[in-house]
């Protein structure tokens, strides 16, 4: 039997944790470097000189920035907390382990939302038009949660070394960017390449963004959204289940 009062109480406390995360961890140099500047420069290095249109570039840039921002800090919050010896204090508070995980996801999501405004403004300045703003907004929100949960999954190994987690995250993040239809549209990929692309949640977000901006999505929106929702649910459940198991090993 679910106690509604406890659920609301834990949601409120997850928001408190999210607020704490944003104030402490999200105003640090690495966030700006790895969340915004790095994906922008990486994107430019693959697009400059290819005579691509703004309509093609902006969905990819938006996907990359959202992906890198939402996964830049969330993986290292837990190792930072255990290294700074604040995690045990937090775990002894009247909150469940999943409340801590959800709080970390909310912080990462909120930050992703704020930063995603940057490529949209750049796109609007470059003259793009958003034909389906509702779908784009829904996709940004959904992908923000999805990528934030993925970021939290990276920190499941109970190490106190942020560098170790960053290494694990990088091993996943970089290949994901290259297989998600950002630099080469899905319809230009070979069949085997498309099957690999379908394994990445970023693929579906990029496809929705192309659909909303270029009117040139490869998959129907319903499939994109279903896949993105599926990835989001799985990532959140895995993050909660695994962190509940590994959190005590951090202290």
């Amino acid at each position, binding site marked *: 039997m679910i106690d509604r009062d*406890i659920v609301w*109480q*834990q949601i*409120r*406390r997850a928001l*408190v*944790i999210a607020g*704490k995360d944003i*104030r*402490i961890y999200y105003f640090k140099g690495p966030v700006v470097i790895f969340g915004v500047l790095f994906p922008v420069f990486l994107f430019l290095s693959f697009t400059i000189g290819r005579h691509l249109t703004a309509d093609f570039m902006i969905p990819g840039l938006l996907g990359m920035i959202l992906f890198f921002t939402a996964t830049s800090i969330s993986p290292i919050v837990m190792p930072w907390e255990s290294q*700074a*010896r*604040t995690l*045990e*204090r*937090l*775990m*002894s*508070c*009247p*909150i*469940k382990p999943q409340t801590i995980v959800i709080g970390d996801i909310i912080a990462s999501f909120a930050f992703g939302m704020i930063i995603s405004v940057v490529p949209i403004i750049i796109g609007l300045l470059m003259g793009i038009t958003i034909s389906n703003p509702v779908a784009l907004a829904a996709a940004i929100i959904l992908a923000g949660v999805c990528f934030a949960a993925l970021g939290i999954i990276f920190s499941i190994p109970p190490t106190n070394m942020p560098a170790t987690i960053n290494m694990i995250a990088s091993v996943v993040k970089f290949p994901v960017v290259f297989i998600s239809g950002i630099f080469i549209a899905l319809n230009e990929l070979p069949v085997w390449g498309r099957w690999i692309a379908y394994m990445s949640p970023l693929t579906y977000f990029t496809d929705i963004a192309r659909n909303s901006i270029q009117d040139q999505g490869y998959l129907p929106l319903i499939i994109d959204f279903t896949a993105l929702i599926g990835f989001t649910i799985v990532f959140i459940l895995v993050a909660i289940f695994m962190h509940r198991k590994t959190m*005590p090993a951090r*202290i």
Partner: protein
Amino acid sequence: MPNVASVNSEAITVRKLSKRYGVVTAVKDINFAVKEGEFFGFLGPNGAGKTTTVRILTGVIEADDGVALIRGSSAGSIKAKQIAGVVPEMANAYIDFSAWSNLMLMADLYGIASSQAKERSQALLKSLGLFDRKDSLVKTYSKGMRQRLILAMALVSDPEVLFLDEPTSGLDVQSTRLIKDLLRSLNARSKTIFLTTHDMDEANQLCDRVAIINKGSIVAIDAPEKLRMATRGRNSVEVSFSNGVNPRHLAQLPGVKEFEKVGDKYHLYTDDPGKLVATLADYSRTAGLKIVTLNILAPSLEDAFVALTGKEERHD
């Protein structure tokens, strides 16, 4: 199942509690109960299972077997955590926050109303000598100030049961005294306090009862005074001389069972302290020595601790 009637008057109930880490058994079938309003000490050498027990009681880790209840609620449940305040061993406050922000964060996590949180935080910071620095970042605090802040963070929810794991370890005299005074005043207000320490003086000064844990098992539970008095054969005479003395001569005096140099003094353990005092007086006269200090010492809690934990070692 613990008896419900007895559990009602118990702030902490532990029955057959066990915790293993791989092949190592950190806590083995331990049983004890802490009464409401009691100041309970939990003593043991390093690695004895003290911190593991506290972590189970505060819901940070789960036991493998047994029952742990906080005022009748399962340890680790939201209800149990809500009525408990915790000062974990080696814990830290958020160093990029001020003391005030740390306290407000704790209050929010315990669901304390803002006005109440502010009022309590002010009072706690004043009583712990931190009020003037409440807006400074914790990274600028000394170790003693940080530990006082962590205690304030544990108390901002006005908990009924307070768990402290080595709260004064490595602190300066002033911070230690402030913390001890606050703990005494909390206990006087009927708060239940569970103190983990290996400082025997601290346990002796503060606790109504102590449990001694060694290698994961409880070896004794009683009032410090009763444990002390139950330690037989550890009476000693403390003596110091103004001029040099041959320690070998002291060790060979009749009635001396053990001999120990403590700073500029000697502790001579004996079954008959009165007789040894007379022997020492005779010895000083014949050896031309001048006695500076001569005291009969009853067994200390430390003696009881060493006797109990040492006995366990020998049994192994």
